[in-house]
């Protein structure tokens, strides 16, 4: 069955209420705008969203938040100069927040994709963010037990896909895309272009197609 779908609406059609959605991007770099806009039109609600941030301005993730579709957000850095949509929801108690150190966020996603049940890390040990978690000393250093973050679906952006779903990214827009692609039951990718099988250099592929379920080509400009 082909992974290539006709448009973003078809790509996100079966995301259900209550789903955990991993959304790629660091700020606006690598943010899958077309897929998020399609999810907004699709109407799924009561979502848990995992992203590094909590939306910028009024577009992308911020628009999903503003529409009241997100019950809970897991991120490292919600507070930004243009995170006013999130700030208002948080201060009025209309969204749950789990703050995770950025490297633990990435590693918890990696662990989910790699079949790791839990891991000890020094990051966050002895801080507020370790409260309620098991802590142990290894090699003279306090470490905290962290669990994987599994997604029902991942929405990510890449530069180019081939028809087998192999992906290459562009510069720092790569960020969370490759780990999120491994951590979800279904990975949906928006790309600038789809090329035939064999057109990508196998040595340069960052995400092998085994992790990719659906690909949609968009030519949307980054609105930010």
């Amino acid at each position, binding site marked *: 069955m082909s992974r290539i779908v006709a448009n973003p609406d078809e790509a996100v059609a079966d995301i259900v209420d209550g789903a955990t959605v991993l959304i790629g991007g660091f700020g606006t770099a690598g943010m899958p705008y077309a897929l998020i806009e399609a999810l907004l039109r699709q109407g799924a609600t009561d979502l848990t969203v995992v992203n590094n941030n909590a939306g910028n301005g009024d577009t992308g993730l911020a628009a999903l938040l503003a529409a009241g579709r997100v019950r809970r957000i897991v991120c490292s*850095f919600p507070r930004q100069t243009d995170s006013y949509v999130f700030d208002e929801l948080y201060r009025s108690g209309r969204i749950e927040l789990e703050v995770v150190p950025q490297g633990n966020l990435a590693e918890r996603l990696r662990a989910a994709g790699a079949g790791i049940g839990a891991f000890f890390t020094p990051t966050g040990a002895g*801080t507020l963010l370790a409260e309620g978690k098991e802590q142990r000393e290894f090699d003279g250093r306090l470490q905290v037990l962290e669990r994987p973050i599994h997604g029902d679906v991942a929405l990510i952006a890449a530069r180019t896909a081939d028809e087998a779903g192999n992906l290459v990214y562009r510069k*720092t827009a790569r960020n969370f895309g490759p780990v999120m692609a491994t951590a979800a039951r279904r990975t949906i990718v928006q790309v600038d272009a789809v090329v035939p099988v064999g057109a990508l250099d196998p040595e340069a592929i960052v995400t092998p197609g085994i992790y990719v379920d659906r690909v949609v080509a968009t030519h949307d400009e980054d609105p930010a």
Partner: protein
Amino acid sequence: MTIEHPDAAPLDRTALAAVVARSIPTGAYVNLGIGQPTLVADHLTPDQRVTLHTENGMLGMGRAAVGDEIDSDLINAGKIPVTELPGAAYFHHADSFAMMRGGHLDVCVLGAFQVSVGGDLANWHTGEPDAIPAVGGAMDLAIGAKQVFVMMNLLTRDGAPKLVPTCSYPLTGLGCVTRVFTEQAVFDLRGGEAVVLETWGTTVDALRELLDIPVRAKEVRA
């Protein structure tokens, strides 16, 4: 031994950034935190051959992008458009933080609300009830690099020392800070003491009076 400049003015931010830059070893891989530490990049010399890491997935970061160089896919951890240098490399977030946590970075430079004499760092959260908590990569940076440098004012606006016996702000990392750069002095934190390397507009004795921690001069090595 300690170099004292009692008659000099305390350093301004630019001069402090230059002092930090001079302390970075030749050939080091370095992460500069968001805010004041980014000023350090302006003072690194080509002879130092420093490679800058940005935790959103790049080694070999160049200066801020201007005009036609601005590319929304090429940003730093502060989400500012930057440039790439020859030899740059891109990688995903799990790799980027693995190289940090794994101790492969030589130095990171961070800002701070408070640092304890034991090297505890508080720089992510004021702990105020209405503050939205946001940690970003601060906790990963604090425990990851071989040396953690802090750049901060020695005193708060109210005149309270920020180099303290025990941090009152929520911690970012335990026992991680190795050197503290302030407008009045540079301190190495070792064995529960602040060893003064250099001063501007003050002396070791005056710092010992000012701070509520063990302060000593750097000794001449035999």
